[in-house]
């Protein structure tokens, strides 16, 4: 275990992240990049950008609280140190997505009210399920919830958003590219560290699987509400795109909101099944009411 954890040292993190792919960036993108003017010409598109960025801030605030809260519960110094790097990664994500809200015109004194107004209630509940485990100091459930479920979801959401933004909004696409690189590291730690702990504590399986089932339910409800609420914004964005943009077999420039929701949900759930299987857990399908 110690050998694999050595790859997650502060030194490696410093060299690969701040001194690596973030070198020369400002809030995660190149310093001269700006949000595209066409975003500000379409109220539907601007509102959709603010609304989706708010969800990113809500998710990253949860990830910051979870990763910092798990440090005390970690059973060894190596895991504490990795979680310290993850804490700062998540804080950076909170910062860059908050900055994007400012770039989109949200006033600093209206930040919290904007977040409160647009936060998806299902995403808030998703975060609460995870933070209940963290508050109890449950390291195994906390890392599965944070580094497999939350990060797994974030990874696919960021990839889809990046694919949608590359043509019209390189600034946002570059911002997302750095967060995707971070999330890949976080998911890797979760898989590698938790597998051996699950083997050592098989009695934890039912509780952890129940948490995954609850979180998956709230995640799917989040997607459902997000895509049904933003139909006008998606349509406005698709009208501006030229050519096709394929992601997991779906053309993002022509797909309906229902098709977009389906491809995102299918991608995330497929990832969950693979990653949970690697750590010895079986994916639990949530009951859809």
């Amino acid at each position, binding site marked *: 275990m110690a050998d694999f954890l050595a790859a997650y040292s502060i030194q490696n993190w410093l060299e690969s992240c*701040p001194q690596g792919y973030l070198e020369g960036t400002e809030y995660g993108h190149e310093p001269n990049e700006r949000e595209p003017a066409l975003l500000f010409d379409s109220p539907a598109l601007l509102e959709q950008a603010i609304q989706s960025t708010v969800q990113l801030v809500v998710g990253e605030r949860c990830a910051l609280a979870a990763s910092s809260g798990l440090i*005390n519960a970690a059973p060894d110094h190596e895991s504490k140190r990795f979680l310290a790097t993850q*804490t700062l990664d998540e804080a950076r994500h909170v910062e860059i997505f908050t900055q994007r809200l400012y770039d989109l015109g949200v006033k*600093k004194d209206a930040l919290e009210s904007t977040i409160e107004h647009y936060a998806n209630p299902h995403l808030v509940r998703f975060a609460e399920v995870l933070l209940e485990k963290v508050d109890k100091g449950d390291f195994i459930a906390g890392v599965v919830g944070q580094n497999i479920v939350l990060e797994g979801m974030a990874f696919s959401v960021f990839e889809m958003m990046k694919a949608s933004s590359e043509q019209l909004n390189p600034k946002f696409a570059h911002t997302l590219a750095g967060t995707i690189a971070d999330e890949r590291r976080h998911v890797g730690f979760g898989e590698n560290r938790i597998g051996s702990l699950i083997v050592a504590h098989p009695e934890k399986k039912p509780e952890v699987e129940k948490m995954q089932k609850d979180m998956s339910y709230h995640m799917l409800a989040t997607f459902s509400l997000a895509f049904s609420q933003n139909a006008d914004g998606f349509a406005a964005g698709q009208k501006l795109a030229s050519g096709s943009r394929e992601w997991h077999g779906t053309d993002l420039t022509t797909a309906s909101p229902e098709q977009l929701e389906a491809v995102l949900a299918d991608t995330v759930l497929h990832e969950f099944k693979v990653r949970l299987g690697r750590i010895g857990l079986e994916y639990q399908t949530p009951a859809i009411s």
Partner: protein
Amino acid sequence: MAPLDPHALDSEAFLEEVHSFEFWFQAVEGYLSERPYGHRPDLPEPELGDTEREGLITTLCSYCVGETIALEGASSMVGFAPNRRQKIFLATQVVDEARHLEVLLHRLLALGVTDPEAEIARRGNRNLLAFKRRLLEFVAGKDWEAALFAQNVILECMEFTVFQSHARTADPLTREVLEGIVVDERRHMGFGENDLGRRLATAPHVRARLAEVRKELDPLVLATFEETQSALGTPRANRSTLGRDYLATVERLGFDA
């Protein structure tokens, strides 16, 4: 473009700037690049006598206990910090403390300690463990003022004083590691001083509360110094200097007993 001078900004913009990942990154970039594990890679391992080496190992074990306390304290405070900027600053502090722990563990390995965690458990300073219990009680109670004072003023001043003093007499390799840590501690102390200073300006009654916390923790700090200096072989007659320096640093920050 001229570099940004944060002190030219108004109060809100200043806090937005200095409590950011961007600011942290610019601050550490200079002294961490090309210093893996806190020192230049070409610095040779110093030749130490057995007594000196043993004393250094015991001292570094206590430093690891201190840095673990700081890591656990700072990370737990992220959850109840009053606003986003404070959370982000504390997240930068979390990674600083974890880095300190890592470079000190790395130094122990270089000194031939094969199982640093076991060695720390065996040699770690008992007074620091009592300090840790108290800090984590403040944290568990989500008592922001007491936790911030214990963590970013008392603990950071203690580490700042002892590392700065030790660096003056340490071998070149240990000195470079300690000097890199001291720069971070200065930033952490500044955060505590700034936040608590603002609170004291609008709520002077907080001062009495902090004085109570200090009365409780100062003896643990001074006892820690005594033990550390004994391990380092500091002559008894010179040991009070460190305690005086610590008390002066805390008072200079505006927190008199």
